């Protein structure tokens, strides 16, 4: 049945039909008709304090719910403020639909007030984007956007809608099916390749699974567990893959790469077969490990373009990880022994002295919560400490900007995650540098009363870079000391957020208890030494 309505109304109707419950954004003149249409819908709108946070919040929401996250901005500066967030979502394959207002169609290309070519600007890091010129196409385009964002290798899709288009009347009808000739994601792995993979695994002596974010995105953790337990394969992960299997699983060795755990890198070096699943094996993941000719590689990925991009592959399998792994599991035999016992046994014992170390806090958090939380992190040393020391029990509960490495991601992602999973405790692990990149989101926390917990490691440094300068520039420190930090306790108070500061080891337990027992949002500042290394020596 066709009904007459404005494009703006139709947009809201499609969002409703896609099951959208929440939108993050900031309005402006070029998007006001859409906002006006939103007024009379029951979709919740969260007013953020900068558009970058809107994408990160949508991302945190998407990553905890498996749904598409939606964010909105106005034209020009609103749209460009989305860019870092969109690129972050792209690199981590997070399904996002970003809607931007655009200047009047007749003025496009004339450099008028608040005009920017946002589809041009975001083309390299959106899965797809649209500039809507024909009002009649809006419904189909929005539906396509949700479909593209949430299928195959997920990612952000941007829709730019000129203000005059938003105001036009159309005959509204939701299309039943969408058919995009050039977009047919392949979910089922090729049977022959699956057979070859099974043979390669059974014939290997020292197989290793390296799992990435793709395992989590496809919900393949159970299938992965079955495979590695049947074949007794040690599991290593990329930063994005943490939680693919519980971090206390007997076969889990840790994260690989330049900031990875020694055991994991050692296993990678000694393996004769590497099974890469849903990971792109970028430079940082491989670190200085060279893939040699006598190591065979099976690469499973939903995105054919990932296979063979960074490492040569012997058995490429294009398909959804869950699908492919369950097919492999049907055919695979059982193996008797676990080859990586010795490596696992070498696990590092952390130094235990009187000083307050970040891992003291992180391990206490793990203990107190027993993994019943969603963790988000920012980027820096604290991200690596969190990756190494937190107990991650379930897939999808460790949320971090793995691909782009965007400082400022953690707190907004936590807000989004809490909206997505209000039943879960959400803890954001951040550093004093990262926190200050988007700390205005404390206002969103205050306004919406989002009970997220923030653990802020304050080393008065851009720690990760400071550490690099220490090692590589023989202590020629430049631009890494954060003098001028605010008093974070007063800052929290300004936003009505309860807080606590600790700087001694014996305060840890009580502080974590306080954090845990507090009902509303909470900021725990942990003062640590600037010289705390990422990996204890």
């Amino acid at each position, binding site marked *: 049945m066709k009904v007459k309505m404005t494009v703006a109304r139709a947009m809201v109707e499609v969002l409703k039909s896609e099951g959208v419950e929440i939108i993050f954004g900031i309005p402006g003149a070029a998007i006001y008709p859409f906002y006006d249409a939103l007024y009379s819908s029951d979709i919740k709108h969260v007013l953020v304090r900068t558009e970058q946070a809107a994408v990160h919040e949508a991302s945190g929401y998407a990553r905890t719910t498996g749904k598409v996250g939606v964010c909105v901005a106005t034209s020009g500066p609103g749209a460009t403020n989305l860019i870092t967030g969109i690129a972050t979502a792209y690199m981590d394959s997070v399904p996002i639909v970003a809607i931007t207002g655009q200047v009047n169609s007749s003025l496009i290309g004339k450099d008028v007030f608040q005009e920017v070519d946002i589809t041009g600007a975001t*083309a*390299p890091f959106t899965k797809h984007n649209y500039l809507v010129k024909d009002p009649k196409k809006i419904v189909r385009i929005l539906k396509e956007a949700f479909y593209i964002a949430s299928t195959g290798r997920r990612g952000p899709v941007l829709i730019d809608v000129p203000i005059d288009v938003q105001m036009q009347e159309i005959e509204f009808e939701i299309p039943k099916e969408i058919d*995009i*000739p*050039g977009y*047919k994601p392949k979910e089922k792995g090729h049977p022959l390749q699956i057979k070859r993979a099974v043979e390669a695994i059974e014939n290997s002596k020292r197989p290793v699974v390296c799992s990435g974010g793709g395992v989590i995105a496809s919900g393949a953790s159970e299938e992965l567990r079955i495979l590695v337990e049947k074949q007794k394969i040690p599991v290593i992960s990329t930063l994005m893959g943490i939680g693919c299997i519980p971090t206390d699983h007997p076969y889990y060795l840790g994260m690989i790469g330049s900031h990875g755990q020694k055991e994991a890198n050692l296993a990678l070096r000694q393996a004769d077969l590497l099974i890469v699943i849903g990971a792109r094996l970028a430079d940082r993941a491989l670190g200085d490990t060279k893939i040699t000719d006598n190591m065979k590689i099976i690469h499973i990925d939903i995105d054919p*373009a990932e296979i063979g*991009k960074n490492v040569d592959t012997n058995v490429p399998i294009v398909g959804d990880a869950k699908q492919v792994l369950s097919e492999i599991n049907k055919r695979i035999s059982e193996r008797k022994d676990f080859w990586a016992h010795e490596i696992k046994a070498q696990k590092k014992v952390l130094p235990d002295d009187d000083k307050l170390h970040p891992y003291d806090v992180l391990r206490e958090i793990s203990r107190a919560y027993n993994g019943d939380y969603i963790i988000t992190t920012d980027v820096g040393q604290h991200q690596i400490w969190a990756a190494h020391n937190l107990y991650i029990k379930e897939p999808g509960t460790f949320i971090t900007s793995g691909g782009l490495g965007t400082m400022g991601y953690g707190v907004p992602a936590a807000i989004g995650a809490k909206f997505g999973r209000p039943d879960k405790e959400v803890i954001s692990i951040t550093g004093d540098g990262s926190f200050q990149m988007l700390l205005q989101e404390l206002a969103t926390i205050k306004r919406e009363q989002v009970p997220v917990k923030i653990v802020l490691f304050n080393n008065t440094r851009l720690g990760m870079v400071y550490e690099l300068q220490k090692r590589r520039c023989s202590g020629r420190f430049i631009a890494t000391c954060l003098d001028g930090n605010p008093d974070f306790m007063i800052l929290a108070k300004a936003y009505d957020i309860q807080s606590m500061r600790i700087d001694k080891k014996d305060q840890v337990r009580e502080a974590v208890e306080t954090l845990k027992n507090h009902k509303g949002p909470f900021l725990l500042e942990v003062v640590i030494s600037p010289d705390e290394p990422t990996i204890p020596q």
Partner: protein
Amino acid sequence: MKYTLSVLVENHPGVLSRVAGLFSRRGFNIDSLAVGVTEDPTISRMTIVVNGDDYVVEQVTKQLNKLIDVIKVKKLDPKEAVERELALIKVNANSQTRSDIIQITEIFRANIVDVSKETLTIEISGDEDKIEALIELLKQYGIREVVRTGLIAIERGNKVISKSKSEEDE
């Protein structure tokens, strides 16, 4: 090595810039890119000549396939395809050289499409080598301007690259 890719895309605005952008962004070299609409007005065909090795062509193909507007990408085997390029060449000509140039043009089965007191403009179509050869010969007279379309190509025989995705082409 040069490879010719035949790419079917949806005839939408912005597709060309996406395709061209992909090449520059990922550091692939395009030798030429020619676009035109097909028998189906909603679909355009791009013929892209890429310079690189097997890895590059594979990556280009995969990355192109990732673009939502790209319907199909096919690597053409030069032996199995007809390849053509059109060039317009404006060359200096005076009363002494004019008849030589006309002779050369005839040998190449090219056409003179414009004449002025001091120049001749020649139209030639053919594969790249043929065009290069003509340009080489005309150089001695002084070439004023060359305009080339870039290569277009089509498979020989009754094979077609169509919108429907068949497994064998992948």
